[in-house]
C-alpha cells in the first residue's frame, strides 16, 4: 500500500519537474503533443503522437460527449411511439437509451483516462529527450525506436494486443456492471422502452433487508453460507482424494499403474457439461438410479424407514435440499479427483526420496509418513493453488447449474427472491439476470462475490503461506 502511494507521488512529481524545467518545445507539447518531437527532429513520431491526440479529441467530441453529458441522469426522454393514421407510419421520438448512455460513457471515460496516461508519459518522454539534447547525447531516430520495440521495449509489443482484449471484453463490461449496481436497472426499467437511473446505495440496502416484499436478506445469508461451505468442501475433498488416489496408484505394489491412471483420466476427457447433464438425468426423480432402486425395493424400504416421504416419486437425490447438497459434493468429488490425481502424481514423484527412506528406517508408519512428510510437502508446493481453487469453486458455475437444472425450491421466502437452497452466489446471479432481468441485484451480488474472494485471497496469502519455509524441504 505504501509503495503504491509512493509510486503515485513519484509519478506526478516527475510530471511536475518536466513541466517546470521544460523549454519552449517541451511546454508546447502540453498543448500539441507532437511539438516536443518536432523540435528535436523526430518528425514521424511527432506526427503519430499528434494524430492520436486529434483522434481522441474527435472521438470524444463527436461520439462520447453527448452520452457523457447525460451520464448524471442516464437520460430523461422516454421512448414514445406516435402512430400517424394518415401516412400509416409510426414515428418514434428522439428518446434516451439509458443502457447506451451508461455503456458509452464508460467507454468514453476509459478513452479519456488512457489519453491522460499517454499525455503525462508523453511530457516526461519529451523532457527526457530535451535533456538528452542538452547533454549532447544521441537521440533515437524513428527506425531505431521501432527496432527497440523488438528489443528493450519488446514488452510493449507483447502486451498491447492482449491488454486491449482484456480491456474491451473484461474491464469495460465489469465497470458497466459495477455502475449498474447503483441504478434501478431491472425488469421494469428496461431500455429502450423505459429509462433507468441512479439510486445510490438502495440496492445494497435491499440485499440486507428482509420483510414482506423484499426477502433478499434472508436468501443472501443462506446462499452465502452454502457457497462458503461448498467452496471449502469441494476444494478439500477433491484435493485430499486426489492425493490419496495418486499415492494408492503409485504404490510400489500396484501393478499396471498406467492402466489404472488412464481409467480415471477417461472421465476428464468427456466434456464436463456432458457428464454433468448425464449424471443429472441419472439421478433425477424418474432416472435410472431411481428406476433400479425401485426394482430392488430400496425405495419402498426407505419409505418404510421414514427416510423419504411416502408420497415421493423416488429418492430425491437432486430435488430436495439436504439430499441435493450431499449429492452435489459427492458428484464434484467424482469430477475433481482424477484431475487432482494427475497433478498430485507429478508432484509426488518429486518428493525427495531420502526423507522417506530415513523416516522408514526410523520406524515411522505409513500413516505417519503421509501426514508428517507427504502432506506438508504437498501443501508447501500447492498452497497457493489451493487458495485459487477455493476462489474458483466459489465461482463454480457449471457444476451447480447443470446438476440442478430442474430443481425447484420448496421454500417460498427463497423463491420470492428467485433463489434456491442449492444456489451459489454466482448461479443466483445468473438466474437473476437471465430469467428475471434483475440486473441491479445481480450486480450487487457480483460485487459481494468479489469482496468474498478478495478477502479469502488476502487472508489466505498472509496467513497460510507465512514466512519462508523453503529450507524445510530442500
Amino acid at each position, binding site marked *: 500500500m505504501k509503495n503504491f502511494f509512493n509510486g503515485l507521488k513519484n509519478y506526478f512529481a516527475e510530471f511536475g519537474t518536466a513541466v517546470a524545467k521544460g523549454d519552449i518545445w517541451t511546454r508546447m507539447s502540453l498543448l500539441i503533443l507532437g511539438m516536443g518531437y518536432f523540435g528535436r527532429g523526430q518528425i514521424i513520431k511527432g506526427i503519430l503522437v499528434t494524430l492520436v491526440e486529434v483522434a481522441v479529441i474527435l472521438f470524444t467530441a463527436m461520439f462520447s460527449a453527448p452520452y457523457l453529458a447525460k451520464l448524471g441522469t442516464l437520460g430523461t426522454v422516454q421512448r414514445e411511439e406516435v402512430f400517424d393514421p394518415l401516412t400509416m407510419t409510426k414515428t418514434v421520438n428522439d428518446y434516451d437509451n439509458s443502457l447506451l448512455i451508461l455503456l458509452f460513457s464508460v467507454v468514453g471515460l476509459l478513452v479519456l483516462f488512457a489519453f491522460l496516461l499517454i499525455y503525462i508519459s508523453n511530457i516526461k518522454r519529451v523532457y527526457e529527450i530535451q535533456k538528452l539534447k542538452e547533454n549532447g547525447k544521441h537521440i533515437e531516430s524513428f527506425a531505431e525506436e521501432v527496432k527497440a520495440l*523488438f528489443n528493450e521495449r519488446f514488452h510493449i509489443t*507483447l502486451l498491447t494486443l492482449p491488454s486491449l482484449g482484456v480491456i474491451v471484453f473484461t474491464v469495460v*463490461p*465489469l465497470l458497466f456492471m459495477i455502475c449498474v449496481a447503483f441504478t434501478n436497472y431491472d425488469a421494469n426499467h428496461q431500455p429502450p422502452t423505459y429509462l433507468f437511473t441512479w439510486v445510490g446505495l438502495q440496492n445494497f440496502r435491499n440485499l440486507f433487508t428482509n420483510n414482506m416484499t423484499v426477502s433478499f436478506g434472508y436468501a443472501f445469508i443462506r446462499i452465502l453460507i452454502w457457497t462458503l461451505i461448498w467452496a471449502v468442501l469441494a476444494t478439500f475433498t477433491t484435493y485430499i482424494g486426489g492425493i490419496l488416489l495418486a499415492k494408492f496408484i503409485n504404490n510400489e505394489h500396484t501393478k499396471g499403474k498406467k492402466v489404472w491412471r488412464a481409467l480415471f483420466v477417461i472421465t476428464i476427457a468427456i466434456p464436463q457439461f456432458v457428464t454433468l447433464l448425464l449424471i443429472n*438425468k441419472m439421478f433425477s426423480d*424418474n432416472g435410472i438410479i431411481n428406476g433400479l432402486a425401485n426394482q430392488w425395493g430400496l425405495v419402498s424400504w426407505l419409505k418404510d424407514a421414514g427416510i423419504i416421504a411416502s408420497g415421493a416419486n423416488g429418492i430425491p437425490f437432486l430435488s430436495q435440499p439436504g439430499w441435493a447438497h450431499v449429492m452435489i459434493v459427492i458428484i464434484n468429488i467424482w469430477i475433481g479427483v482424477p484431475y487432482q490425481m494427475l497433478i498430485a502424481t507429478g508432484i509426488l514423484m*518429486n518428493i525427495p526420496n531420502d526423507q522417506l527412506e530415513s523416516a522408514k528406517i526410523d520406524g515411522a508408519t505409513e500413516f505417519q509418513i503421509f501426514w508428517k512428510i507427504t502432506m506438508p510437502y504437498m501443501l508447501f508446493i500447492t498452497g497457493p493453488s489451493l487458495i485459487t481453487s477455493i476462489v474458483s469453486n466459489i465461482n463454480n458455475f457449471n457444476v451447480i447449474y447443470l446438476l440442478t437444472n430442474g430443481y425447484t425450491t420448496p421454500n417460498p421466502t427463497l423463491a420470492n427472491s428467485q433463489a434456491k437452497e442449492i444456489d451459489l452466489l454466482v448461479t443466483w446471479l*445468473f438466474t437473476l439476470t437471465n430469467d428475471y432481468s434483475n440486473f441491479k441485484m*445481480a450486480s450487487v451480488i457480483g460485487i459481494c462475490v468479489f469482496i468474498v474472494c478478495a478477502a479469502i485471497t488476502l487472508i489466505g496469502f498472509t496467513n497460510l503461506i507465512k514466512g519462508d519455509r523453503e529450507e524445510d524441504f530442500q
Partner: protein
Amino acid sequence: MKKPVRIVLRHVVLFLLAVFWLIPVIWLVATSFSAHKGMATNSFFPTNWSIDNYAQLFARPDTVCNFPAWFKNSMIIGVACCIISTIFVLMVAYAMSCMRFKARKPLMSFAIILGMFPGVLSMIAVYFVLREIGLTDSMFGLILIYSAGSGMGYLICKGFFDTIPISLRESARLEGASEFTIFTRIVIPLSKPIIVYTVINSFLSPWMDFVMARLMIKSKNPADWTVAIGLFNMLQKTLVSEYFSVFCAGGVIVAIPISILFVIMQKFYVEGITGGAVKG
C-alpha cells in the same frame, strides 16, 4: 504371509474405485447404442442394441439436431481460439517472466484483482457490448469472447518460463540477440510441455463452455449452434424422451477426439502443469 493378502486387497479396492468412476461413462456409451430413444429406467444396459443414434447424428439432421454443423462450428471456434489464446498467453507470460519494466508488478496485481470478479457478472455486459458491435449470433463474436481475455491466464506459463535458466538468456543477449530473437529462438523451443498444455486447454475451453455460448447465440436455427448448445437443447423436458440416446451418442463422439488428445499429450500435460505449478 500378510503381504500378498494386502496386495490383492489393494487391487480390489482400486478396481472398485475404477468401477465407481466408470459407471457414468459406461452408461453413456451403452445408452448411445440403445434402440430406445428416451431414457431407460429399468435396466442399466439397453434391451435392444442399435447404431441408429449415430446414423441420425451424422446423416439425418433435423430441426433439433444438426450435429455435423455443430461439430464444424465448434471445430472452427476451437481452432481459432487455440491459435489466438496460445499466442496471447505466450506473449504475456514472456513479458511478465523474462522482462523487467516499471508497469510489471502493477499489471500483475491488476490481473489478480480482475480475476476475482465472477465471470458470470461480466457476461451479460459482454453481451451488450457485442450487440452494439453487431456480433451476437456469429461465430466471430464467440471467438473474440473466448480469446480476447485469454492473456489473463498467463500465470502457469509464466511459472514455467521462470524455471528456464537466466544464464541462457543472458548469454544470448551478450551475443547480440534481441529480445524478439530470444523469445522466438530460445524460450519457445524450450517450452514444449507448457505450449502443449496451453494449446490443449485453449482448444478445449470452447468445447466445454456452454453458458457463454448460450447467452451469445440466440438463433433458433440449429445450424448456428455449437456442440454444447445443441446437446444441451436435446435434454429439454419436451425433447428428452425423443433425443436422450442421441445426446449420449453426441457425448461419445465429442469425447473421442478429446480422449485421443489426452492420451497422446498426457506426458506433456502433467509436465506442463507441475512445471508451472511448482513456482507459479
